[in-house]
């Protein structure tokens, strides 16, 4: 039987999240941006987004902001994911399936190593 959570659960979540933030080191904000135009969605961007949110949840990756954008004009390379870490230049990846998204989060976002074989040089 599914259980509907209440706003009281949110109070606890807020406290826990604030507690975690105190111990987190300042590495600059991390943004993960997924292309969600018609082209992106048709190419499977929702599966990509799904993999990103599941990885954040399962690996407990805090401090990541997930955003979306429309068509960026590279429809043939969709699904497209862009990563911005702190002041570093934006990195753009193409043909990002769910598996590639998981790889990008683990290698690039967590370990700081760019995933070369899906890189798009603009």
């Amino acid at each position, binding site marked *: 039987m599914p259980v509907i959570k209440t706003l009281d659960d949110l109070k606890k*979540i807020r406290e826990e999240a604030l507690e975690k933030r105190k111990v987190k080191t300042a590495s600059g904000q991390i943004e993960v941006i997924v292309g969600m135009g018609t082209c992106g969605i048709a190419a499977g961007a929702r599966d990509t987004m799904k993999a990103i949110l599941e990885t954040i949840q399962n690996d407990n990756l805090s401090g990541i902001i997930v955003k979306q954008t429309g068509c960026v004009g590279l429809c043939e390379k969709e699904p497209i994911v862009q990563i911005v870490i702190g002041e570093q230049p934006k990195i753009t990846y193409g043909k990002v399936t769910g598996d590639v998204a998981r790889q990008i989060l683990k290698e690039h976002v967590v370990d700081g190593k760019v995933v070369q074989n899906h890189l798009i040089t603009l």
Partner: protein
Amino acid sequence: MRELSLHLLDIAENSIAAQAKTVEIAIREDSRTDRLHMSVRDDGRGMDQEMAAQVIDPFVTTRTTRKVGLGIPLLKAASEACNGFLEIHSTPGIGTRLEVEFQNSHIDRMPLGDIASTILHLVIANPQIRFIFRHQVDENEFFFDDEPIKRELADIPLSDPLVISYLRDEIEAGIETIQPAMA
């Protein structure tokens, strides 16, 4: 796109692109009338009649200055193939309402698919927009409004792992409760 939930995501993207502050998504499944009705309503910048006609059927116009996508025409064709329709009501400066309907039992009707993912992703990736979601299956209704949640969380991002987990559970459980009981 093989799921109506993907089309809903695509339609909602238009509302986001139109700089909506509030997006309301509604699904109504009625077994008595055998209709499936979906609507997306926003308070974005809206369109004049010419533009609204063009987004529905981009090939009948001679205009070449404006690019429009194929998302809406594809959904319109899918609805009409299932004894349904698609309509857009829009007023510049006020907003846009898209209504689409299908014969629910029609053999060619796409499945709704993963509605929970569509709503979850819209909510998390667009924190500046208020999303209201209403899903009715006959007498049962699931109603979701992200505003009270965001007020409670204040500056905690929606993509925090704990918050993703909370939202996922809430939306998935809500949709599950309105499904008809298995015979």
